[in-house]
């Protein structure tokens, strides 16, 4: 077993884990943060996307020990402490950017990272950024609309 210390959603955590443990397994099985999902086993679907030190990462493709000393944010850490939705979360609801909800946490975490890099993306930019996130329900139509709408909302005050 290896002991690692990291911050998850701004809370310090120290855990003893099998070195084979993936970051997504640490989050889901050890820390019970089940908003991060597993939809494939080949790093294709992006349902497991979280932020590590603020950058989006597919947590099925990173060993938990690699997160030692780093800061991880999951979908559960996105809304404000008062429960106020992040503008990206609000946009997904407002634009009907989700149906079954399974891909949604990964979509939201990935889309937020896009806006950090590119606050005013075009439709083309959004569609290409999201190539690493699969959705089977929405045809991406309303997801793309949600990301564009969140970009509008967040201009000047990105979180």
């Amino acid at each position, binding site marked *: 077993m290896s002991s690692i210390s990291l911050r998850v959603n701004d809370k310090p955590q120290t855990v003893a884990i*099998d070195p*084979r443990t993936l970051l997504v397994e640490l989050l*889901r099985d050890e820390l*019970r*943060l*089940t*908003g*991060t*999902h*597993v*939809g*494939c*086993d*080949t790093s*294709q*679907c992006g*349902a497991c996307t979280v932020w590590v030190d603020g950058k989006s990462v597919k947590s099925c493709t990173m060993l938990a020990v690699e997160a030692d000393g780093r800061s991880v944010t*999951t*979908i*559960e850490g*996105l*809304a404000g402490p008062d429960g106020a*939705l992040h503008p990206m*979360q609000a946009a*997904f*609801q*407002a634009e*009907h950017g*989700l*149906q*079954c*909800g*399974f*891909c*949604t*946490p990964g979509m*939201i975490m990935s889309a937020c990272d896009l806006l950090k890099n590119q606050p005013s993306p075009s*439709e083309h930019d*959004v*569609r*290409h950024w*999201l*190539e690493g*996130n*699969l*959705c*089977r*329900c*929405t*045809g*991406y*139509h*309303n*997801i*793309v*609309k949600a990301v564009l709408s969140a970009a509008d909302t967040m201009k000047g005050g990105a979180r």
Partner: protein
Amino acid sequence: MSAQGIGAAVKRKEDRRFITGKGQYTDDLVLPGQTYAVFVRSPHAHARLGKVDTAAALAAPGVVAVLTGADVAAAELGGMPCGWGIHNKDGTPMVEPPHPALAQGKVRHVGDPVAMVIAETKRQARDAAQLVDVTYETLPAVAHLAGAVAPGAPLVWDEAKGNLCYDWHLGDAAAVDAALKNAKHIVDIDLDNNRLVPNAMEPRAAIGHYDAANDRYTLYTTSQNPHVIRLLMGAFTLHVPEQKIRVVAPDVGGGFGSKIYHYAEELLVTWGSKKVGRPIKWTSDRSEAFMSDAHGRDHVSHAQLALDEHGKFLALKVHTYANMGAYLSTFAPAVPTYLYATLLSGPYVIPAIYAEVKAVFTNTVPVDAYRGAGRPEAAYLLERLVDKAARATGIDRVQLRRQNFIKPEQFPYQTPVALQYDTGDYHATLDLALKAIDVDGFPARKAAATARGHLYGLGISTYIEACGIAPSAVVGSLGARAALYEAANIRVHPTGGVTVFTGAHSHGQGHETTFAQLINERLGVPLEMVEVVHGDTDRIPFGLGTYGSRSLAVGGSAIFKALDKIIDKGKKIAAHLLEAAVGDVEFKDGKFQVVGTDRAKAFGEIAFAAYVPHNYPIETVEPGLEESAFYDPKNFTFPGGCHLVEVEIDPETGAVTVANVAISDDVGVIVNPMIVDGQAHGGLAQGIGQALLEECQYDPEGQLLTASFMSYCMPRAADLPFFKVGNHVTPCTHNPLGVKGVGEVGAIGVPPAVINAVIDALAPLGVTDISMPATPEKVWRAIQNAKGGAA
């Protein structure tokens, strides 16, 4: 229309838990003391099963038990049942082979489960599964339809000669042959409908829990229809009385048909839990899903359309081989028969139709209903054929469709293939779609693409489907072994809130919102005071679940029927309190009012009076305000419409870009336009996926070549444009809501529009045919072949 009732695009009530990561899917649940199951699956397509040596696995760290086909046989568990029996042309029943939960004697497809390893952790179970030593004696296998029906082909089942499951037909062969003899034009087509993997983003999962203290089983499972699973387990597989089984389908991450069926894993974790005395969780890996979830489509067809000299359709003759896979999944035999051949009239008047369908066993994963189920195959065949007929006769393809449409005044329209369409207006949806895509601007868009050195084409599809599954007596006469009504229970609480218990199941469709809108529409209760409960057999009296675009047409109608009873009872209570005759009380705008007076009681007052009856007609009216209703549809519903697609093709690479999509559907009355549009978008993505990207491939020996998202091409955001979605409403005439269903229209209507567009773009080069999926390689080769032919 109220701000929250029928027709209002209200935001979804269920969204908050999903966007904050608080959804509860099956794999998110943890039961105290739970163990983990991993399945050992056959790597061979066809093999005799020798010794299954579990000793090393049993000795591995953390292993609790290893169960095999021998244990399943010893426990006398029932095989996985098939819910639909089809009869051959000669009246004999189809071949219905056994389907043991763990393989016995032989394995028949890659992924066929052989053993279940149960351990303290998933990793230990996975490690130990590697240690189960299975001896296989491999046998010749067949995977493709052509190979399976060839003379001398290896047999999947000894009892199925020629690998035939059934040889079925529908329609009037003599009338069709006579029409073919006298026709001016006969247009022939050969088509494959590519095999697909549904790939809901949430992989299947199941947790079985046997509670010895109460002698009761609970199964948490990724199901579209938990009551059906309980019924099948009680009656056929687990052989335990239903009151001792609870099936819960919590949040489910998409289904598209693949989560309808009763799967072996559900049975095994439930049964195994009693054996090991602890809960057992199984969660499918994606690669495992590719070889264990039911697949879709996989038809090979030949068809002929006869036309007179004016382009009038005279007759249609269809021959189809349908791949069943190695075993019959729950609904499988119905898909290429009653959900396919009955739709071959499309939106057209075709006086004579004859269809022959041969269902074939192969050494592949079972094939069953996938979004559209039979209807996409029918629409694809017909719309490819009509386009080909337009080219053969020189009649414009829009005009040819228009002149053969069933006209609005011809409804109800009896087709020659059993169905009677109640209503529709195909001219209206066609006109709307042509306008939406700006068909007049097509030449300019094509010219612009040509200037870029690209090819550009427009494709059309005018389709119909049958959904709202299904009138019980009708499907019973066609071989369904269960009724297909739906149930609803509505509980009005003393303080005026409402809980709706529905037998339908939402796995993305938004029932928690749409069904609440029905309550708001009828009772005036705000959505915030309505809760919709689904997916738990202990909370909901009964139900048949969600598939075949049935939830609103059948489940919603059951809710309306229960609401009628609520309002009737409310009137009796109000009449008593208002000292009026029941016949003088009307319910309007959320109030029970004595007609022609200002004497009224608000709905909330009546709810309160029903439960706290100080002044109550207790001798004649039971206290409480809770009603149940079952709704059995009188007919299928018939959504239809027109899908138009423009594609741009780079001739250097063969890459097809979907440039423009405009659709106009008639899905009947629309309760929530936002949700309805979303359903259309999702169906379109899957339909475009089938046309351009997706194909489940086996090699001829039955090895699965596409077993991950690396090799099976799923549609991604950059593969699709924004869609232009419009509607024209003709209300369904036979259900109280006037709704038809929208879940499947996109997947049904759009594939032929895409392929017709590709052929339209390539036609100047002389290309007349291309098969799905029209991948860059296939398109490039078609272009090269055409060039070679011209040279």
